[in-house]
């Protein structure tokens, strides 16, 4: 039902040359044959991250259900949002901070990924107390722990960008790059 497309070896090698700490990054892209939505998976040293395209309507439904004002629902849905799964695949203590992460647009500029704390501050001003769904700002993972939540970047639909993410294993810093991520479209393509 799903297709697994491996990233071109040359691209992977180039990525690895950029990474001094990461030993071997395995990247794969899966396409849901029904929805056409993409999932990127990167398995680095002790750290696995998956980013799943989410449609704006999914975001609208989530926040409308929690009684967000319509303006806030649309503001969230305007972001490029990925369902994100992070897993500690090591036998060590793993930690991460979203504030260390950056996204890089095609002109080479880097921007900080918006954190849960930043969202909550904005929501609080709008009278919203709901505090879930977003990827926690920080994670402290024991062996086998994993977590998921939304990662948000302020980019238009179907924009291509790179995500630069960081984590620590027993205090040792690591960096990974997922290249050519693409924001979800406004809606699913019409099927015949």
């Amino acid at each position: 039902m799903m297709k697994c497309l491996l990233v071109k070896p040359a691209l992977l090698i180039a990525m690895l040359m950029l990474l001094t700490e990461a030993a071997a990054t395995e990247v794969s892209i899966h396409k849901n044959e029904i929805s056409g939505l993409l999932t990127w998976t990167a398995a680095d040293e002790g750290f696995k991250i998956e980013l799943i395209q989410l449609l704006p309507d999914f975001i609208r439904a989530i926040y409308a259900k929690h009684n967000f004002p319509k303006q806030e629902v649309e503001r969230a849905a305007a972001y490029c949002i990925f369902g994100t799964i992070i897993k500690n695949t090591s036998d060590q203590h793993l930690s991460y901070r979203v504030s260390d992460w950056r996204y890089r647009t095609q002109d080479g500029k880097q921007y900080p990924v918006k954190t849960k704390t930043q969202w909550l501050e904005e929501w609080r001003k709008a009278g919203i107390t709901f505090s879930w769904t977003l990827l926690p700002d920080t994670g402290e993972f024991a062996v086998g722990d994993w977590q998921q939540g939304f990662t948000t970047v302020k980019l238009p639909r179907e924009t291509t960008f790179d995500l630069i993410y960081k984590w620590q294993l027993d205090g040792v810093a690591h960096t990974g790059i997922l290249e050519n991520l693409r924001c979800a479209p406004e809606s699913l393509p019409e099927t015949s």
Partner: protein
Amino acid sequence: MKNTFLIIILTLSFSLNADWQQPELSHNLTAVKKVIQASDFELQDMDEEKVKLSDYRGKVVLLNFWATWCPPCIREMPSMERLHQRVSADDFKVIAVNQMEDADEVFAFTGQLEIDPTFEILFDKTSEVSQDYAVRGLPTTYLIDKKGNIRYRAVGGREFDHAEVVKLVNSLIDE
């Protein structure tokens, strides 16, 4: 109600989309480095009856924080029910603390599950209890001993009826 139905459909769709790619549910619970007393709380159950954690002092408690829109929460819930069925109710209690939803939403949700939960479901409508337990993401689970001490923790979904978890629960019961 329309929104609730839509969210269930979308959550299940997301879950199906992501399900095969999601990490396999492991079974390891991590022993906490510093054993502390679990904070007591009082929350309403599905019948709007008030329930305190301390009502179950003398039993081992699996305390799970969850929500209906959380895919790994959905995945691990049947295994929580099987664990609940497997271990004597005289010695063990499963408590699932829902975050910021209500009984109607949870009722609609549990009707979609392969196993109807018979364990305790409580409602933390303001997330105060989860904040007190330093829960950063869902699901997060604590295993509490008979004296009310937090002994183990799991962040992310687990297969709670795995033999190792059953053994762990029984070892706390036997203490």
